[in-house]
């Protein structure tokens, strides 16, 4: 079975497995946030306490538990990445499929649009859009997705170009399968690997973008997100002031890095397992 060899070779690559485990831990943190800790709100009396048994990650300038903030922030980050991936997939996959399969004017047009979007400075554009549309967490997620689709479309297009040359596509046309079924079933099934890899990369960059936007003050101030925590720490001077509450930014930042590294490792693990050259 092809599927079994995929799983086997994925398990053999320890880094990919490590990524998968990390992803699972973060996903469960986010999903189970309400069970793990109370939603941090209001004020506390225990201000700027370093990490201790009671407050694993210490407390912030308002006396709120930073561990709770990180856990609830994971929920936001997962929500944002998920929505962004959905938006990017809904636009990017059909755009890539169509531009790879229809080689005429429509194909080159979509390809040109992908090209232009790939050269644009994406974060500044996100900033402009987020500043105008207002900073609800869903708005931010949609904006990230709207600007993440070109790389997904490019990967989809390149794989589609290769697959649509194969004889079984001609055979499907011959027996009267509709173009829509050919694109979304016959071709998509065969390019699922690279598309999946790119989706995990979009998950990773979406969190970087969301944290960046929140850090720059474009996040949703009413929701805990990792970027918002960092913004509060930065605004309070937690990095260079004396005495220095380093725990305010250190744990949150580490979680952003771990999240992104895990998704990147998962992506490259899948990629290696799919690629016959590196399989063994």
């Amino acid at each position, binding site marked *: 079975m092809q599927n079994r060899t995929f799983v086997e070779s994925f398990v053999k690559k320890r*880094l990919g497995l490590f990524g998968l485990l990390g992803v699972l831990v973060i996903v469960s943190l986010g999903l189970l946030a309400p069970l793990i800790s109370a939603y941090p709100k209001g004020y506390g009396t225990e201000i700027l306490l370093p990490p201790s048994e009671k407050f694993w990650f210490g407390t912030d300038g308002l006396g709120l538990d930073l561990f709770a903030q990180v856990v609830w922030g994971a929920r936001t980050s997962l929500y944002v990445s998920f929505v962004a991936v959905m938006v990017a997939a809904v636009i990017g996959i059909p755009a890539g499929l169509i531009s790879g399969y229809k080689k005429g004017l429509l194909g080159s047009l979509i390809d*040109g649009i992908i*090209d*232009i979007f*790939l*050269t*644009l*400075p*994406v*974060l*500044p*554009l996100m*900033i*402009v*859009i987020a*500043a*105008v*549309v*207002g900073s609800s967490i869903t708005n931010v997620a949609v904006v990230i997705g709207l600007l993440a689709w070109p790389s997904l479309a490019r990967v989809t297009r390149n794989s589609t170009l290769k697959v649509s040359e194969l004889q079984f596509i001609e055979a499907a046309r011959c027996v009267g399968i509709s173009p829509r079924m050919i694109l979304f079933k016959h071709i998509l099934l065969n390019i699922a690997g690279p598309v999946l890899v790119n989706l995990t990369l979009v998950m*990773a960059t979406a969190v*970087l973008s969301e*944290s*960046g936007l929140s*850090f*720059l*003050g*474009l996040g949703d101030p009413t929701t805990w997100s990792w970027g918002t925590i*960092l913004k509060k720490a*930065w605004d309070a001077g937690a*990095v*260079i002031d*004396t005495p*220095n509450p*380093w725990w305010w*930014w*250190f744990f949150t*930042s*580490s979680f*952003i*890095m771990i999240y*992104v*590294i895990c998704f*990147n*490792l998962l992506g*490259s693990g899948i990629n290696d397992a799919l690629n016959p050259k590196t399989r063994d």
Partner: protein
Amino acid sequence: MANYLIRRILKALLTIFVSATIVFFIIRLMPADPVTLLVDPKMGPEVQQAMMQQFGLDKSIGLQYVIFIQQTLSGNLGISFKTREPVTTVIMQKLPWTLLLLFIVVTLTLVIGIPIGMLAAKKRDGLFDKFINVLIVMGISIFIPFLSFAFLYFFAYYLKLLPTGGAYTPPPAKGFDYILDVARHAILPSLTLFIGNVATIILYTRNSMIDVLKEDYIRTAFSKGWNEKYVVRRHALKNALIPTITVAGIMIGSMVGGAVMTETVYGWPGVGRLIYDSVSSMDFPVLQGAFITLAVSVVVMNIIADLVVAWLDPRIKLGG
């Protein structure tokens, strides 16, 4: 070659045009009133009226678009809410600082990233290569503010070696002292942005070098008994560089994004910090102008990268 250049410039103009158009429609089509986004309600009624007319904000959206493109092309991007200066003036004060930062980072990235990538390719699957691969995954996962915080904490707060922010110590010194002072301030922002970007360059140099070393003509050269160093430098490097430089061009876009966060954390007085400040003060004309300026810079640097590729790649010259 001339043909290629013309096509390339047309594409660049199209990219700039698309960026400007996106910004135009986002500001116009959102529920928020574009007049309040582009004309400060605190300005006097006459000034408001003049601005409305200049940008045709009382006219139909089609006409507004034509006026907007005309004004943008002539370099008129409106008036800053905050400083009441023309947006172009505000941006032109900041742009040199961003370009300086980007210049340092691009140079460092290429000068250090390419040799590391080549070395990793030559010792493929060796210990060094594996180590580099781990670094690459870390590198592409870097969150710029985190790195900046860590650097500031360590070098500025803990060791007190380097300044905590800004581009120079006010009041600015004169002559060589000024340059030295700026250099000291530039170390951390450049290092941050460098680490955030060098991984991609190493990755692409490594992979394309591995591909090139497998090519027939390289193997022929080796089998002729040519010196390895000579073969790699003379034949392989040039071909391996083509994808690397192409990627470097594309990377500029994301590098500029990283620059916004870097400049914000280190208080580097460039366009990125300007974007952050205009978000906080809701200074939309400056925000819009800053984005268009960045888009233009990215496109120009892309053209430069493509010209270098064309110079390296004989096929493009012949194909004309």
